[in-house]
């Protein structure tokens, strides 16, 4: 055992010196770096979540409701000697001079936060510090970006609803906002006692009331037990364990997809490993034969080469982990804006996972070809032609396949997702591979029509058809993904934008009171703006379907769980709107007005397993309402008109507190009317869709940049495949070059031949990638997003040019050394 270990280390040193293991090591480094970069980043994000479990709530327990918290709940908490604080969150618009901005208002009581601390600064971007205070009466603390957007300073006055406030401090950190993934609007924090003066909250207004509770574990538990049995449908308890389910889900999804993206590099690196291992095997046939001759058993041979692989895998994985560690800082930097929290340093866990993974991938791809070495017959030393074992292709592919599938399952943690990804990946590779092979064969036919250098290049590609096809696929995949993420993504966004009507509503107005609806309509007419449709809505919670209580846990689907928890906006209408279409059942007639009927949006109905004829029970401010589903409807959401999942006939909801909502299109100039409008209707909240879309676009750009970043490793792995392939053909090339030179070919001609070969390979890979990216873009537009997609010639041009130039340069540089050796020396050696 010791002998084999020592021998394998010596053998490793020798093989390393001869340069044969370098590509193998580089491939392992790339695979491990790409996996651990994602691992380290998600580890940081997860740690941040864990550390802040308590801070995320700013309390030990939170009771949240869309209605004011009942005084009995507060009284019982206080009687249980628990600390309490209250917050009230809602969206509104802040006005300063003629500028306005959508903000997220958080009104807090003096004791807030019960866990964690606020941090404030005296002016934007000044150094901040912890404070134990909260905003005093008449003052607000705001995020720095609000000051920039409104062009106001600390100590200026801003308007919020009907009240004026002094901007007192710059709020830089609040514990229970840290984990919000998508902070759309800046924060304004105010004193909860000041809320009535703003007159922003009217009956039915959208607002989230929270009671924060903190204390010793047993008291908090007792309070929780007391409260759980008394919860109203609109109330929900948030505990430390709940943390931020949305953030956790988003993080898990990010981890899964970035992880799967990194596996593409792992796969390509594996291909490079298998190719390098095959060459290594070929070059060690004599070594094995001599070792067998000198008395080494098959077991010894396997052990020596396996240990050698182990050492190289271990060392390369360690380096890969280090590179992954450095690379994750790039990922964290790209995604910095999306997670509004300082990330702690990563733990060592991803490295502990990365090391065995690197080894597993190396063994999976490199060991099967190497195992052939044990079958080398010792008589090879006497007769060179003695049957030489061929590395077993089937075994190679089987072990590699199982390694990759295992890794993918581990990343995806979902058999169905795995099946999709695996199916897609195998399908893409097979189609690309077959096309590449066909192109390579076609190329052979062109040999007679080109000059000597190109003929030599073409001949090289066609003769090694399988290797050439593998290289085209490796590069094709890398280039295709980059094209999809850059050009095709832009085309898809543009295509979607074109489907929107040119004057699609770009502002939503919510929280309109019933007595303001007509006045608001008149206001728009008076300001030469088309009077918008203003629609009523009543907030209600779905509590039962056909008498059976609705519980989130009854649904597997995340979206269904969310809808089972959140409130619906029930609206009413006499006529079916133009952008709605009844797909089953029928719309009500005039004489059915006042009857408890319901029209339900088809897709959501399917999600919640609601069928025609079902009786749905809603809880509206404490009273129950039964409605029968009489029709299912599709909605064209892309019109950006106000639309509802649930609509009733007029006359049913008259006695419930309703607010109104509308959407209007306002041009850049037209937006000026918002200031006088908000002066006249201060409680109305304006949501600027353009700004929201801008934010969404920014998020998409960041996320795709992160994915592109991970795919840089794919290109590196593609290069590793190219180099492995070049190395595999190095001896052959050297021999050919020597023969050609003895026949009188000069260096320039030979170099042109190499350039021709690699430019052509790159050209084919790039063109194939362009076509594949366009097809995927078309399929996404046609079948997923349902709009027309115009083929973009740029995608093809960019793909082909990148491939030809990139691979042309890399390939020529990599093989140039074969030109340097004097032909006599080469011929003597061969």
């Amino acid at each position: 055992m010791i002998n084999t270990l020592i021998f394998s280390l010596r053998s490793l040193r020798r093989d390393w010196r001869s340069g044969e293991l370098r590509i193998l090591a580089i491939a392992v480094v790339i695979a491990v770096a790409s996996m651990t970069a994602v691992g380290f980043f998600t580890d940081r994000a997860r740690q941040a979540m864990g550390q802040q479990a308590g801070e995320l709530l700013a309390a030990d327990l939170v009771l949240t409701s869309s209605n004011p918290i009942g005084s009995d709940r507060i009284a019982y908490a206080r009687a249980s000697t628990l600390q309490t604080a209250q917050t009230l969150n809602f969206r509104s618009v802040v006005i300063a001079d003629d500028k306005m901005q959508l903000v997220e208002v958080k009104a807090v009581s003096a004791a807030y936060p019960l866990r964690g601390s606020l941090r404030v600064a005296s002016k934007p971007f000044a150094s901040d510090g912890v404070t134990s205070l909260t905003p005093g009466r008449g003052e607000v603390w705001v995020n720095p970006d609000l000051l920039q957007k409104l062009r106001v300073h600390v100590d200026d006055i801003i308007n919020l609803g009907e009240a004026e406030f002094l901007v007192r401090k710059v709020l830089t950190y609040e514990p229970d906002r840290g984990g919000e993934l998508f902070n759309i609007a800046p924060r304004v924090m105010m004193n909860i006692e000041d809320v009535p003066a703003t007159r922003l909250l009217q009956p039915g207004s959208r607002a989230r009331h929270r009671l924060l509770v903190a204390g010793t574990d047993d008291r908090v538990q007792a309070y929780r037990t007391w409260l759980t049995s008394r919860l109203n449908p609109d109330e929900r308890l948030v505990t430390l364990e709940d943390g931020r389910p949305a953030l956790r889900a988003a993080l898990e999804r990010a981890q899964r997809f970035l992880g799967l993206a990194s596996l593409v590099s792992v796969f390509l690196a594996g291909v490079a490993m298998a190719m390098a291992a095959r060459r290594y095997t070929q070059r060690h046939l004599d070594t094995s034969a001599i070792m067998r001759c000198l008395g080494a058993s098959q077991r010894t041979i396997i052990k020596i080469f396996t240990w050698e692989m182990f050492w190289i895998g271990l060392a390369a994985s360690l380096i890969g982990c280090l590179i992954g560690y450095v690379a994750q800082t790039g990922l964290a930097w790209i995604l910095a804006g999306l997670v509004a929290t300082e990330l702690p340093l990563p733990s060592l866990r991803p490295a502990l996972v990365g090391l065995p993974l690197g080894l597993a991938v190396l063994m999976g791809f490199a060991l099967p070809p190497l195992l052939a070495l044990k079958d080398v017959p010792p008589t090879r030393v006497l007769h060179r032609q003695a049957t030489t074992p061929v590395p077993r292709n089937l075994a190679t592919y089987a072990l590699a396949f199982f390694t990759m599938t295992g890794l993918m399952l581990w990343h995806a943690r979902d058999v169905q997702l795995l099946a999709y990804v695996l199916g897609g990946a195998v399908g893409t590779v097979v189609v690309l591979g077959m096309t590449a092979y066909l192109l390579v064969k076609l190329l052979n036919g062109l040999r007679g029509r080109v000059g000597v250098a190109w003929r030599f290049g073409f001949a090289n590609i066609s003769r090694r058809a399988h290797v050439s096809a593998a290289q085209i696929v490796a590069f094709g995949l890398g280039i295709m993904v980059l094209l999809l993420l850059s050009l095709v993504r832009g085309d898809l966004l543009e295509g979607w934008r074109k489907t929107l009507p040119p004057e699609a509503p770009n502002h939503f107005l919510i929280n309109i009171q019933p007595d303001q609806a007509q006045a608001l309509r008149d206001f728009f007419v008076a300001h030469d703006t088309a009077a918008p449709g203003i629609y009523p809505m009543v907030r209600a919670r779905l509590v039962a379907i056909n008498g059976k209580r609705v519980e989130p846990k009854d649904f597997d689907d995340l979206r269904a769980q969310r809808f089972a928890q959140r409130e619906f906006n029930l609206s009413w209408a006499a006529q079916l709107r133009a952008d709605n279409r009844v797909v089953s059942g029928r719309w009500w007639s005039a004489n059915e007005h006042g009857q408890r009927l319901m029209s339900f949006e088809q897709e959501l109905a399917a999600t919640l397993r609601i069928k025609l004829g079902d009786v749905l029970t809603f809880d509206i401010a404490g009273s129950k309402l039964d409605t029968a589903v009489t029709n299912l409807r599709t909605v064209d959401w892309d019109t950006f008109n106000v639309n509802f999942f649930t609509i009733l006939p007029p006359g049913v909801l008259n006695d419930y507190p309703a607010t109104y909502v509308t959407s209007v299109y306002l041009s850049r100039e037209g937006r000026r009317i918002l200031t006088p409008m908000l002066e006249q209707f201060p409680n109305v909240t304006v949501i600027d869709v353009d700004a929201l879309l801008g934010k969404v676009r920014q998020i998409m750009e960041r996320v795709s940049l992160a994915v592109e970043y991970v795919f840089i490793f794919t290109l590196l792995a593609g290069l590793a495949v190219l180099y492995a392939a070049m190395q595999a053909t190095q001896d052959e090339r050297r021999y050919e070059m020597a023969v050609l030179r003895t026949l009188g070919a000069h260096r320039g001609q030979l170099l042109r031949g190499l350039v021709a070969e690699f430019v052509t390979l790159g050209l084919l890979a790039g063109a194939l990638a362009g076509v594949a990216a366009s097809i995927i873009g078309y399929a996404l537009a046609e079948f997923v997003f349902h709009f027309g997609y115009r083929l973009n010639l740029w995608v093809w041009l960019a793909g082909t040019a990148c491939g030809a130039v990139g691979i042309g340069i890399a390939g020529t540089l990599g093989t140039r050394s074969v030109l340097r050796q004097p032909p006599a020396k080469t011929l003597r050696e061969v």
Partner: protein
Amino acid sequence: MSQTSTAPMVEAQRVSKKVTSPEGELLILDDVSLKVDAGDAIAIVGASGSGKSTLLGLLAGLDAPTGGRVFLDGIELTTLDEDGRARLRAGRVGFVFQSFQLLQSLTALENVMLPMELIGEGSARTAATDILQRVGLGKRLHHYPNQLSGGEQQRCAIARAFASYPKMLFADEPTGNLDQTTGARIAELLFALNSERATTLVLVTHDRAISEHCHRLVELEAGRLNRAA
């Protein structure tokens, strides 16, 4: 497995070897019997294709015969599998080949250390250095095979063969790739070391001058033993 001091070092009993070729079955060796005693030096001569190298391979246990039995150091090779034969060779058998068979990625010193390393010999480096000095390559220890001349490469191969003090040496046309003068020097070295270390030698050659150095000579003709001298 029995081993007695009187048993021959190598023995072939009615050995034959058939191979399947595209033209059908080919009989390479036919009913060959041969004994080599310990300390003996025997030359196998014959024309190209007469089956010399095949016989050498069978005697050394590099290959298995299709008929007959082979004994090495008293142990029947034909009852062992390939791994068993490899274990038997380890440390006991040395080889010298026509094409040297040095590992190109190893230096001269490392090539010579190889067989000793395989059996876990602790003093491999010292022993290898000593014998390389003995064969006149003391100043070439860290040269790679492609930096050595043909003669030097064969010296290195001879050093490797003798380094672990094998009981038995098999040499396959050791001078076949060398010019006459170099070949003669190499043969001299080979026989000198052979007698110094009292190794049993089986030598395949078509060079009559070299075969004269051996105690005995056997000739193969079309796979059959022609005569024993």
